[in-house]
């Protein structure tokens, strides 16, 4: 089986034998992983091995699933009360003295909500991480509230979740589901998971799937109608809760958790751009969040108050703990982006050819919420240096979750004034820098197979022709098209690619820009003049950074930022001739 090195034991409770597997040192804090439907404990195998070096990891097959025995008769044998008995029996066996950190997925989370809200488990649970499984009581209240005061939005939410719950109705029909699971559905299920849910092929699901799924139908039949009809009024969580919401879940609407703070006051929210089976598709991220949350609550248990979360950014639920690499992070848009990710709690690698500036970005990032931030001094146009950086980042910090290829230089001047050397320089940084970034870090992302996002900073110049910026615009147009092509190629691997096209943004790109065809004094003057003009426009790089985070969250393809960039984008589509006329004008420098 895939749980290599697991110690097995059997726990007897209420006439049932539960198969329990343990990994890791049992003197470490205990994490109990509860599986869902139609699964067995092996759904957690990827997450469990990642947690085993820091925790005592315990997994068990829920009654009737995997190698645990099933109750006789099945009807009435799967009530939440009985499942709570099982949980307590397992916990008493594996961690008799210390409370455990509970983690549940799907039906494992549904039952864990019961464990964490009933009085008899108080003091036995140190923390609870829930994914894709609401409390039936909370769900019942959620429905009631919407039925009682139906507004158009609430009706929409009800209908939306109602449509996503189609399988629940089917599972309530007698016999048919069992026949289907033991017959054709059970045979085809692994393929369906791979195709529809993008669960990687391998040793999951296990051969016990048909009987797991058939027995598991009683989870629904024994609990759903009774709990949704008469939800408990006192279903308040007595342990801190972390809620992980996969945004692409086909079975559960994220709206279900809108009022969760009333039931779980110390709620930490996390979101993932993934489908339902996150323990299979995003084990790295889950293991990181589980261990972070469990460790924080271990501290609370030990008497030291858990530190207040410093990351207060808008997207802290999405980027908390993720690894973000930004090139050109020593100034301008890159630095503002690094700060925005830091505020959202991401770990930041600030890359810049200016060592001092990169170090500064990393230092300030740590101050505003980044749990860890590093500075790397690399010229993005240097292939070898970039390869070395990729190796170092992978070895020391991990696989990058969000890559921002932002480094760029300015070059202005007519085509015939632009020397081959100028061309080489601008293409090396603006285009080759992006290519190296995508090639090296994108490859690591794709090989990990757990999604990610690449942001390339193009420019409004990518679609806005101008006789003053031939080389720069060419390089940025290439970045834009590269992003679009890469987006198509990586879509199948859940890696999003966005091209950001800012217009005139107040950064120091103007004071380092090269002006071809003029002497040094004139170049200085033009740099100064353009810096002043950009200063007058005064569009802050922070707003571009916000747009970048938004683009990652929404997985947007092309994002023009600033009104002039958006206007030009529209004209590029609908009035290209006007743009061509504008391109002939001399810029006021």
């Amino acid at each position, binding site marked *: 089986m895939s749980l290599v090195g697991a110690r097995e034991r059997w726990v007897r409770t209420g006439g049932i034998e539960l198969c329990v597997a343990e990994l890791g040192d049992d003197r470490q804090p205990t994490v109990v992983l509860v599986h869902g439907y139609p699964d067995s404990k092996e759904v957690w195998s990827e997450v469990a091995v990642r947690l085993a070096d820091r925790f005592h990891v315990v997994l068990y097959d829920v009654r009737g699933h995997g190698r645990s025995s099933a109750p006789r008769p099945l009807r009435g044998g799967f009530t939440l009360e009985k499942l709570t008995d099982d949980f307590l029996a397992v916990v008493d066996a594996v961690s008799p003295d210390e409370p455990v950190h509970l983690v549940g997925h799907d039906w494992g989370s549904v039952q864990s909500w019961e464990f964490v809200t009933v009085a008899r488990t108080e003091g036995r649970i140190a923390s609870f991480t829930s994914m894709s499984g609401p409390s039936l009581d909370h769900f019942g209240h959620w429905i009631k509230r919407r039925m009682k005061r139906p507004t158009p939005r609430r009706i929409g939410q009800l209908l939306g979740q109602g449509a996503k719950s189609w399988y629940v109705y089917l599972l309530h029909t007698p016999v048919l589901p069992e026949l289907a699971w033991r017959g054709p559905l059970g045979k085809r299920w692994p393929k369906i998971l791979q195709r529809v849910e993008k669960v990687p092929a391998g040793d999951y699901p296990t051969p016990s799937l048909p009987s797991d799924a058939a027995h598991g139908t009683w989870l629904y039949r024994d609990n759903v109608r009774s709990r949704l009809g008469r939800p408990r009024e006192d279903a308040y969580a007595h342990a801190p809760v972390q809620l992980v919401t996969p945004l692409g879940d086909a079975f559960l609407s994220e709206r279900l958790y809108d009022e969760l703070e009333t039931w779980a006051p110390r709620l930490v929210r996390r979101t993932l751009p993934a489908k339902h089976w996150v323990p299979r598709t995003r084990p790295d991220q889950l293991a990181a969040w589980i261990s972070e949350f469990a460790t924080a609550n271990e501290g609370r248990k030990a008497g030291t108050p858990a530190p207040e979360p410093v990351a207060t950014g808008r997207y802290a639920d999405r980027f908390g703990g993720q690894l973000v690499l930004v090139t050109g992070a020593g*100034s301008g848009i890159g*630095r503002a982006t690094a*700060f925005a990710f830091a*505020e959202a709690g991401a770990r930041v690698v600030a890359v810049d050819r200016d060592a001092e*500036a990169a170090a*500064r*970005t990393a*230092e*300030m990032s740590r*101050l*505003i919420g980044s749990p860890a931030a590093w500075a790397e001094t690399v010229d993005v146009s240097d292939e070898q240096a970039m390869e070395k950086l990729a190796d170092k980042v992978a070895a020391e910090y991990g696989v990058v979750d969000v890559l921002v290829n932002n480094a760029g230089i300015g070059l202005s001047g007519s085509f015939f004034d632009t020397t081959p050397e100028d061309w080489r320089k601008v293409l090396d940084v603006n285009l080759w820098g992006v290519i190296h970034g995508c090639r090296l870090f994108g490859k690591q992302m794709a090989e990990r197979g757990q999604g990610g996002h690449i942001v390339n900073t193009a420019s409004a110049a990518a679609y806005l022709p101008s006789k003053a910026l031939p080389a720069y615009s060419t390089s940025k147009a290439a970045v834009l098209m590269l992003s679009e092509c890469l987006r198509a190629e990586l879509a199948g691997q859940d890696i999003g690619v966005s091209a950001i096209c800012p217009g005139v943004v107040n950064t*120091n790109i103007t004071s380092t820009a090269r002006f071809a065809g003029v002497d040094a004094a004139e170049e200085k003057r033009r740099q100064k003049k353009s810096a002043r003009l950009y200063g007058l426009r005064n569009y*802050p790089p*922070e707003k571009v950074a916000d747009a970048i985070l938004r683009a990652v969250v929404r997985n947007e393809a092309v994002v023009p930022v600033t009104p002039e960039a958006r206007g030009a984008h529209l004209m590029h589509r609908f009035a290209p001739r006007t743009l061509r006329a504008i391109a002939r004008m001399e810029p006021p420098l």
Partner: protein
Amino acid sequence: MATAVAGELAAELRGFREVQRLAYTCAEAVAAQLKPGVTEREAARMQRVWLRERGVRDWFHLPFAWFGDRTAFAGFRIPLQFFPTDRRLEPGMPFILDMAPVHKGFTADIGYSGSLGPNPVQDRLLADLEAHRELILREVRERRSLREIYEDVDRLMTRQGCANRHRAYPFGVIAHKVDRVKERSWSPRLFGFGTQSLKGLASDALRGHREGWSPLWSPYTFSDHPPRPGLWAVEPHLGFRGTGAKFEEILVVTDSRDPEQSAFWLDDDLPHVRRWAEDK
């Protein structure tokens, strides 16, 4: 003759130094009394009362107090937003106290940054301000144009990763001239500014306009002139994502040929300067 002038100058500076110290003492006293729940209005009133008790009757401007992200002037569009509000102080919040009392005819204008409990971001910003104090003095001694110095300060702030927040002040000034003010029994205030001081500033502006200089040290062309002898209240103000820090103190500019004597900070024994010395 020369000694007489020097003596006069020394006596004058002593007067300014005393009122600046008084204002900083006030800031420290009020800062020590700040507790969670105190509002900006209350903090401003505490400063006013403290200084009134010690003989201050006129103001260059009434005391200001900014808490939380208002220290970085987040979302400030109109000057009325500078006035104290009912925002309450919370643990960990940064604050800035800014006051400009007139005492015995001498004006001071000071800014004091602090936080209620530790605030690492503001600590960092306060530490960063040291470089600006050195930069400004050095370039004033080099007799660089005020506008250029302003731009250099701006560049240094950008390098430090911070935003220039003194740009939010009226005319975007980093400094303005202060002078002696006639003590009148009645000095009304216009938008928080003492009319006597405004009168002084206006007459300076008029004279400067004729002679090609300005009592306001701004990023605009009217500040494109070398430093003008006199007393300048310099107030570089750093902002970083909802946290701000500043200091404000008087820089003395003279027409002496000796660079050391041509410009110097009126007083080096101030809270922020002591703080930098302690950190070393």
